[in-house]
Every structure is written in C-alpha cells, then in structure tokens.
C-alpha cells in the first residue's frame, strides 16, 4: 500500500505553498518599511495610544514617513486619535486594502476601520460556546492580515500600538522578526511599575529588543502657565530602567490636551512643540532614533 510520501501533493490544498505565499506577501510589505517599533506596556491606561500618535506626529515633523498599526484589536483607538472616521470607505482589491490616512498624512490600519458602526464591538462569528483558544487563534490571524494585507507602501517607520498586557508581543515578534524593538511605557505609580516590570522581564527573557522605558504622565503641566505639579505618587522610574538594564528614554509630563486633536485637526505635538510636554516627546523620539539608526 502506498504511503503519504508516495502520493503527490499535500492532499489537494497546497497548504505548504499557500503558507509560503502568505509569508512572501508579508515579507514584501515589510521590506518596504525601514523600521518597525512597538509601543507597549504591561499596564492599561498609561497613555500608549496617545503617545504613539504623538510620537508618529513628531517623526513626521522630523521628516520621516510613518504608519501606525493598531494592534489593540479589541480596544482600537488610533482612528479616533488621527481623525479617520468610521464612514471612511474601504478600498480593497487583489493587492490589498488601502490604509487610512490620518492627521499629518500618517497611514494607519485598525479594526475600527473595518467595523460597520462606530460603536460596533470587535466580535467574531463564533458560536456562543467558542473557547478562548479559538478566539486567540482568530486574533493572531487577524493581526497577520492587518499587517500583510495593508498597502503600507514605502515607510520609514511602522509604529505598532500594542494592547495592554504583554502577550500580543509574541505574535508581533513572529510576524515581524526584524522588529527594531519595543518602547515600554509606564506611569510613575507603583502599581504600573510593578506590572511593566513583568513586561520588561518577559521581553528580556524572550530576547525582544527593548529600545527603552518612557515615564509617561510624569507630573502635571498646567496648559496655561506651564507650572508643573505631581500627578502620581511613585518611585523613581529611572531606577526601574537601571535595575532592568534598559535605557531610560525620559519623562513626559501630562497635558490635558495631549489625547485630543486641536481645532486645526492637528495632533497635540504639532501645535505644541515648544511646550514642556512637546519638548519631552521630541526628546524621547530623538533617543528612539539614535537607538535604532
């Protein structure tokens, strides 16, 4: 009787060839992007997305072309921050889907762009008893499609806005092995540092390159007089960076305007470059640039 190897093909589905073709498509997209950087934190609510958007604006201001992949599949916020409305019509052809174009020509792809209504949740057509394993597998595939099927074109930077937690970095690392590194973000609170510390440890153990640690919401800056005051009680974040042997990229004071666009449709950074917070963002970006270039 013939064996598996005696029969030509792999069962009629060319699965190996298909997987290779999907890999080639992903590679072709990534090869046109010079640097891929993930912004992450083990902790939610530390301002990752707002900071990602403003880091992108700062990079644009410094002459780079930038795209943002919203990897927070279940809590996407980049469309909102960059002014891409839910009514944005998707353009899909055999070559892929066109990214959204947000403020300052930042390209983006987010689950929000695929949903029929602004308040639609990301739900998969699973049966009610679908297990977490299937949902997780689905999300991994969705992430691959968002990266590989978006016509990013030529970019200097692809910033990846990660969801809270440290589990999704495994997916990103397997999709983008040449990842320049991750920027870890924490706020000064002890609770945040405690959780981000675990994220850093995991990345170190997995040999995910860490560009450095940003201390976000490091004090409060009055938008009127620029006087600074404390916002969270916490220990020195710089010492956490030293303890983990990773670069400390600096502190960014909280400014109430940072999470929203200005009346001109600009991101905070563009209209407030000379503010204390604007200068802090620029300094962090300079350190990211010197780290990876």
């Amino acid at each position, binding site marked *: 009787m013939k064996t598996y190897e005696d029969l030509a093909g792999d069962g009629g589905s060319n699965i190996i060839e298909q997987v290779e073709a999907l890999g080639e498509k992903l590679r072709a997209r990534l090869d046109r992007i010079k640097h891929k950087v993930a912004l992450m934190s083990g902790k939610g609510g530390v301002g990752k997305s707002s900071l990602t958007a403003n880091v992108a604006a700062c990079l644009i201001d410094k002459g780079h072309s930038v795209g943002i992949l919203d990897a927070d599949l279940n809590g996407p916020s980049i469309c909102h921050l960059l002014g891409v409305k839910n009514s944005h019509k998707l353009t899909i052809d055999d070559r892929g889907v066109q990214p959204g174009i947000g403020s300052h020509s930042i390209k983006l792809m987010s689950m929000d762009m695929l949903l029929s209504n602004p308040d639609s949740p990301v739900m*998969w057509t699973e049966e009610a008893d679908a297990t977490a394993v299937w949902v997780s597998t689905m999300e991994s595939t969705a992430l691959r499609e968002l990266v590989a099927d978006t016509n990013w074109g030529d970019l200097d930077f692809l910033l990846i806005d990660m969801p809270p937690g440290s589990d999704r970095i495994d997916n990103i690392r397997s999709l983008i092995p040449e990842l320049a590194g991750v920027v870890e973000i924490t706020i000064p609170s002890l609770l945040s540092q405690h959780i981000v510390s675990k994220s850093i440890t995991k990345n170190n153990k997995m040999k995910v390159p860490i560009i450095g640690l940003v201390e976000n919401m490091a004090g409060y800056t009055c938008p009127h007089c620029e006087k600074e005051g404390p916002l969270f009680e916490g220990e020195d974040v710089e010492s956490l960076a030293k303890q983990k042997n990773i670069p400390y990229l600096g502190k960014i004071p909280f400014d109430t305007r940072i999470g929203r666009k200005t009346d001109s449709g600009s991101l905070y950074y563009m209209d407030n470059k000379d503010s204390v917070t604007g200068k802090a963002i620029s300094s962090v970006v300079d350190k990211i640039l010197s780290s990876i270039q």
Partner: protein
Amino acid sequence: MKFLCIPCDEKMETQTEGIMPEEKKNLVMKFKCKTCGHSIAMLTNKFETEFVSKLGVQVNTTAAEAAGTPLGVVSGALAEGKEELKKGAPAEDNIEWTEDAKERIQRVPFFVRNMAKKTVLSFAKERGITVIDGKLMDEVREKVGM
C-alpha cells in the same frame, strides 16, 4: 491529509465539483478515486473546521489565489464588518449574484468559499442561468451538497 483508495492503491482526488458546504456549518469534503470511481466523505467536527478556517489557507486553491484574498479570514469572521468586506462572489461574465446570494456565499467558511463559488458558478453555467440567487443556491446544495 491525503486519502488512499486501498483496492486501487491510488490517491483519491478532491471532488471540487461537488462542494457546497452549508453556511456556518462543519465542513464536509468528498473524495473520489479516479480509477474505480468510489467516493468517500470526510466529515470534520466543529473544532477541526474552526481551526483550519483560522489558519488563513484555503482548501483546493492555488497559492496565488490564497495570497490574493486580502483580509480573507477577517472579512468572513467579523460579525459586524463593513459592507466593503462582504463583497462576496467576484463578478463573472454574464452572471450576476443577488445580494442574498452574496451574503450567503460569504457565510461559507473562508477556506472553502472559492470552491463553493466554483460549484455554484459551474451549476449556473451548465443551465444557462445568469442570475444566482438564494433559491439557486438551495438547488445546488440539494443536488451536490451532503
């Protein structure tokens, strides 16, 4: 996975002309031995069907076709996705798909959707039908489905 016809010692071929999976149901595949004509069916359970569907590969399609289906898995699996994601069956010469038919073909698991489209189109062409609607899809399933 491959299937062997033991009496003939030959590989059984996928019966692409006979695939019309019921929407959102478990996958049924038919295989036929070209030498003796014997057919068998592979019945997958829910977990096997779901697992394959999430890999992003398609059954009995070319690598080029698989790579040329942007957001293929997401479009089929997102419960509240935009209409542009649900464009459904591609346009064929002189054959039109009604909205109902497009929606139904979209509900067929992604990884066998192309096969199902081929089956319906072939059924329509053989009969000179130019509009594919839900009724015709019921007819196709009755004829070739399992």
